[in-house]
């Protein structure tokens, strides 16, 4: 398959099930809502090293937030509900509770509860106040700028999908980066998905295992241009740079939609822009049950 001179390789992205929740962070100003959200989703690129994957999903106008103030929706993914229940209160407690004027609400209804105020209320040292009205329970925790308000818990789903991905094979680093940035911008509009890596882009794609015992992942040498001569390369002769985009979504359909939008954006730049091929990362089907076949996606 070839789109605008870009080869769509006969490959598939291999993804796995995750537990996920959505939080809505509000503040007096959009800037402080974003500051808290960026802090809360920091160091959350990969479950391998961070315990969770998280990022901003979208900005929310005040008319749509629980308290009428500007807000940010973030998605948090973990390998299990137990892990999600551990990382969410820890991150909200350190990064949102601490940020001036902010509040934190559940952005997902139903499913098993993930604690927010249920865990953080104790910071109030007995002065915290619960309000159960309108079908929900909020906590008011006194802090030095007033009160930190949050929902008792957030909803969650255990059927989310993590690890959707595609690889951009380009002639140069500049071409690869421009294409990746274009894809990220286009994919930002796909609801229920995040791109957890910095700026949505990964340069250090990995393979499972390493020559060193105990290292669970190491560089994806088959896609490293400087290792082309080592004999295991998956690169065309004129490929000088590869970038990956990783997608987590609340469902397989969401991940597929995001991949489709991103690959279309990459192909729109085309061979003329230095894009040679689109590939995907997989582990031979051993890692996860979700297989996103590139050619089927783009058919």
């Amino acid at each position, binding site marked *: 398959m070839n789109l605008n001179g870009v080869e769509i390789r006969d490959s598939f992205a291999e993804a796995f099930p995750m537990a996920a929740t959505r939080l809505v962070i509000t503040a007096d100003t959009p800037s402080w809502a974003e500051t808290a959200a960026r802090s809360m989703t920091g160091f959350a690129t990969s479950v391998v090293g961070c315990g969770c994957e998280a990022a901003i999903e979208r900005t929310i106008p005040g008319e749509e937030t*629980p*308290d*009428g*103030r500007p807000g940010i929706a973030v998605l948090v993914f973990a390998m299990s509900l137990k892990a999600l229940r551990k990382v969410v209160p820890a991150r909200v407690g350190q990064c949102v509770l601490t940020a001036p004027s902010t*509040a934190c609400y559940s952005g997902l209804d139903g499913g098993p509860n993930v604690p927010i105020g249920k865990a953080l209320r104790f910071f109030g040292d*007995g*002065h915290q*106040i*619960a*309000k*159960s*009205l*309108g*079908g*929900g329970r*909020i906590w*008011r925790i006194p802090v030095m700028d*007033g*009160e930190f*308000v949050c929902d008792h818990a957030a909803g969650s789903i255990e059927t989310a999908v993590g690890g959707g991905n595609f690889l951009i094979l380009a002639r140069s680093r500049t071409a690869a980066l421009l294409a990746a940035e274009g894809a990220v911008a286009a994919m930002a509009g796909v609801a229920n998905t995040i791109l957890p890596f910095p700026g949505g882009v990964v340069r250090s794609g990995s393979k499972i295992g390493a020559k060193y015992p105990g290292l669970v992942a190491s560089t994806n040498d088959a896609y490293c241009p400087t290792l082309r001569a080592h004999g295991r390369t998956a690169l065309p002769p004129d490929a000088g740079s590869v970038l990956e985009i990783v997608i987590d979504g609340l469902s397989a359909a969401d991940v597929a939609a995001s991949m489709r939008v991103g690959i279309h954006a990459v192909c729109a730049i085309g061979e003329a822009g230095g894009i040679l091929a689109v590939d995907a990362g997989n582990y031979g089907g051993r890692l996860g049950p979700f297989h996103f076949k590139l050619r089927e996606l783009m058919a």
Partner: protein
Amino acid sequence: MTGWRLELRAPLAARADLSGIVPARLAGLGPAEIGRLDVPLGTRRVALGELFSVRSIASPVIELTGDPRLDGVGAGLDEGTILVEGTVGAHAGSGMTGGRLAIAGDAGEGLARGMRAGRVTLSGDAGPRVGGALPGAKAGMRGGVVAIAGDAGPRAGERLRGGLILVGGAAGADAAAGMIAGTLAVRGGLAGEAGVGMRRGSLILAQEPRVLATGFGDTGEHDLIALLVLARRVPELTELFGGPLTGRARRHVGDRLVGGEGEILVLC
């Protein structure tokens, strides 16, 4: 599903108690069977049909005509709707666990006492102890919504444990006495002290009370995000106070004499 209209044959000569006469109890019965249900009247028990004419109606509700001596209307309601035309006696909506009770008139003492869930609306005035405790119970109403268009009598929200009571008019003396949790919102004035012995919960007022109970301390005016959330999640609160809440309120905390962390919020 068939509904029923129960129309009083004559003004009651003694107090009658309709506790338990709710849609679930009448489901599957015919008019004759309903008429044979016995209810207390003064010192004896009589057939419901002696007091009311019973006929089926198309709407799946119970329609009742009220009487100031008719107690326990909607008491024990768990689902469905009871619509009342006129005034009712004591303990209407007592122990409700669901459903809707709408009274077009006044209600006597103990409206919604011990209520756990559901909704009560009253177009007139309520007697003493709205949302109070059932006999022998430590705590009063635990959940649900009670919306009173008129005034509430003394001790509204006494030992309230949860839920929301909205009073469109004024509230009598000793409102929120011993309140444990929940919310009592009063648009009109307060007669006498409020919040004596209050442990937790919120008394939301449109105007500063003339006399604050001993044991309350003024913490000043604040921009409370929680009020913004409540205004959006509970539209009745906004309607009660006649417009969007700004979130700004003066906060009095008490009753500190009993170690309480309750609050009286006076909207600015």
